[in-house]
């Protein structure tokens, strides 16, 4: 039978979330609801020092004063912040030296995800700081990293073991009062990853963390802080899949990157939270604040593949503070069924000779809405700033939408800014061209979508590129591979 675009559309509509499962691990959960007492209780449970508790409480008070933002091009039922449990940790809390000590049920989860730690360790040399329900339970490759002086641990450990670093840098890039969700995160963040690369060290492996939402009704509030000291390099991977839940789950993470003079940080994300079923029921709310600051000659590169979540609200940004610093943003956002994504980046040029590149690819199918929203700001002292932005959208079917909202603000005459955006569907002539050369329609669509996203997929580290392709397959099965 001939495979047509209509068939593809049908398949897209009926494709269910493959990775929806639920691991039954006994959890130690706080009662639902949020108050100053809950914030203090979280801090107490995590055995945090007084300054951390104060910092959380301060954030909580600021959060109470704030209102939820509504400017994004998304519609959803607002989460009830009093109906969420703000802390849940697996009861078993093993200190791990080998995989044998890991809860077998947990290992089973990894197997289903296709990320056997063993295999990962052997084949890819990726150190995993596995987070299940907010508390890290496995850390591998710590020894190798230790030798280089690299600190890579959970945020709670960092607060205990490296308070001077955390105290100095936490909240410097994303202040507590930055926005509604950042303030909420600052108050109640349960855990996350902390990474410090010392001066002149090139991190020998890709650092990786898996986030999973597991416990029903548990908001996940991750806090990540990556510090690359002068002249260092690190590539950081973050990926997530979440089990099927009917209630909307809230994910409000904060990621802060600090690239000091001559340092380089590469931050890659593959996001595949549960997008809701095909009627648009359930799914994760993904309201994330990600921002990095570049000092002199530093470089920050964000790469993201966004395929999941019912609602995505995410703008990984670069503050190009130092002269000659570079910011990059490469993104593929795929939406299907009733998913909504409002994502993009902010490039704030402050230093001289700063450069930024934005490549954003949006693919919308089903009844989804996909928006690019970006800001390029050249301040008056940022001489010779350079920006290139490209936003392409691919529409599949007639019930979806693609939107572009670029903001460009320039206050310096030496700036050179280029922005271009296109919207199109897979052209009949393109398919005809392939058919004519003996490539069937299914393969042709795969080829075209692949080509459309290639610029971004190429930017992913090897280990991740494979998984990203897998995710594209799931989200748009029949069109890729």
């Amino acid at each position, binding site marked *: 039978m001939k495979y047509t675009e209509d068939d593809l559309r049908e398949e897209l509509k009926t494709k269910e979330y493959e990775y929806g499962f639920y691991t039954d691990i006994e959890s130690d959960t706080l009662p639902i609801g949020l108050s100053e007492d809950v914030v203090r209780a979280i801090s107490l449970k995590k055995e945090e020092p007084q300054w951390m508790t104060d910092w959380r409480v301060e954030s909580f008070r600021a959060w109470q004063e704030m209102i939820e933002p509504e400017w994004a091009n998304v519609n959803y039922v607002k989460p009830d912040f009093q109906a969420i449990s703000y802390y849940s940790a697996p009861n078993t809390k093993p200190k791990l030296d080998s995989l044998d000590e890991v809860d077998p049920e947990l290992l089973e989860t990894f197997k289903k995800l296709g990320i056997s730690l063993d295999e990962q360790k052997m084949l890819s040399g990726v150190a995993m700081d596995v987070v299940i329900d907010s508390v890290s339970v496995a850390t591998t490759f710590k020894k190798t990293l230790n030798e280089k002086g690299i600190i890579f641990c959970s945020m709670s450990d960092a607060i205990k073991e490296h308070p001077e670093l955390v105290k100095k840098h936490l909240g410097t890039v994303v202040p507590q009062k930055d926005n509604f969700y950042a303030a909420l995160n600052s108050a109640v963040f349960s855990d996350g990853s902390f990474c410090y690369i010392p001066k002149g060290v090139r991190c020998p492996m890709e650092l990786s963390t898996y986030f999973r939402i597991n416990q029903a009704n548990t908001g996940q509030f991750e806090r990540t802080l990556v510090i690359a000291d002068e002249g260092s390099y690190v590539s950081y991977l973050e990926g997530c899949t979440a089990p099927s839940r009917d209630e909307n789950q809230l994910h409000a993470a904060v990621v802060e990157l600090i690239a000091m003079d001559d340092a380089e940080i590469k931050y890659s994300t593959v996001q595949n939270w549960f997008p809701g079923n095909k009627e648009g029921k359930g799914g994760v709310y993904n309201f994330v604040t990600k921002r990095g600051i570049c000092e002199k000659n530093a470089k920050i590169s964000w790469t993201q593949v966004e395929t999941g979540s019912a609602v995505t609200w995410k703008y990984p940004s670069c503050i190009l503070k130092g002269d000659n610093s570079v910011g990059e943003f490469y993104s593929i956002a795929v939406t299907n069924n009733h998913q909504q994504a409002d994502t993009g980046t902010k490039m704030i040029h402050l230093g001289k000779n700063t450069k930024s590149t934005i490549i954003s690819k949006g693919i919308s199918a089903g009844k989804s809405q996909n928006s690019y929203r970006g800001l390029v700001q050249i301040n008056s002292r940022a001489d010779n700033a350079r920006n290139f932005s490209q936003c392409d959208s691919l529409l599949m*079917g007639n019930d979806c939408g693609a939107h572009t909202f670029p903001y*460009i603000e320039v206050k310096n*005459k030496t*700036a050179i800014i280029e922005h271009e955006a296109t*919207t199109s569907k897979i052209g009949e002539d393109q398919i005809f061209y392939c058919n004519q050369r003996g490539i069937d329609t299914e393969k042709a669509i795969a080829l075209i979508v692949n080509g459309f996203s290639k610029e971004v997929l190429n930017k992913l580290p090897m280990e991740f590129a494979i998984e990203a392709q897998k995710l594209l397959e799931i989200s748009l099965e029949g069109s890729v591979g």
Partner: protein
Amino acid sequence: MELKEKLIASFMAFENLVDIDLPVHDVRSEAIKEFESQGFPSKRDEAWKYTSLNSILKHDYSVFPKLENHIDYNDIKKYFIHDIDTYKIVFIDGKYSSHLSETTHDGIDVCLMSSALSKPKYRLIIENYFNKVATKDSLSSLNTAFSQEGAYIHIPKNKLVAKPIQIVHFSTGNEAALMLQPRNLIVVDENSHVQIIERHQSLTDNPVLTNSVTEVFANKRAIVDYYKIQNDNQNASLIDSTFVNQKRESVASVHTFSFGGKLTRNNLNFYQNGERIDSTMKGITIIGNKQHVDHNTLVHHIEPNCESHQDYKGIYGDSSTGVFNGKVLVNREAQKTNAFQANNNILLSDKASINTKPQLEIFADDVKCSHGCTIGQLDDSAMFYLRSRGIPEKEAKALLMFAFSNNVMSSVKIPEIKQRITKIIANKLGVNTGFDL
């Protein structure tokens, strides 16, 4: 008293001046309520994020035009496109000036809004078209509430209007500060063709605020060319809202040339209510000092097989600011839409700034939509090329700027307008290029 309160208080008095038995009375009352609830837009409104009205709202404007003021034609001849024969509708301080105007009722109606609103023979047109496409935003509502005078142009079926129509608003400065609210209605019926030139000019340095609304209806296969020349002096501000409603196979274009004024805001909205429509919106902005020009455009593609072209060029010197906020909206039904939007800017000074926001909102899949936006400088190697051939710096710069804006000029259909714009640009740059584009 704040301007808002003053305007609301003046509304009663205004209503007593005009006939309140007319059907338009209800429209006005409705509009003033709308304005009262919304107030003037502030920077908190997304559409006004980069443009603040505070500096121009602080003056104590007189909101009623007083008596007719006389101006001698020779003093103001230079503000007309005078080298070709045209119809003229001229207003002085908001009042119609019969001795400067040249109107007609011969087959077509080129006359006044005030008479169209009051005379029974225009009632059908007014009922069908007046305030039918203008949006209910605060400034348009304010204009609707005070709508009384302006140009009324109705071209019936199958007419090719032989000469262009000029609409010129003068302010004499006899009032310390004057607020004008002209309201134009242009209805072009099937297969007809019309060219319109609009200009606002103040003759002294007294502050003037013009809040103008123009509604254009291009019916089946009509062709409408609209040229806006904005070269007012440094104390005059203009908020110009133009709404163009197009029916199938019509072709409409609006060219906006912004060189003068303190603050200029152009709201330009095109609605494509039919198939195979072509819409063009182009603009050249060359400003300096502390001038501010804001172009806010919308093309709403409602039906299939339509095209739209937007091309805005801006050159910003001194401490000027430019804003471009363009939006292309494609409905689900509007398949096979071709929408193109370009915004190119050159910054000449470190104190100048540009904010641009070209948006696409697309709900149909079989479309070709693209936008491009650039910000840069004059090309150094091109400068060197010209300088090395003995062209002085100022002239070389001017040549490059002319070349930069040539794309917009090329679609201007009246040669005299091209010449005039070229002269205005040359004057502005202080050069004598000795050629016409």
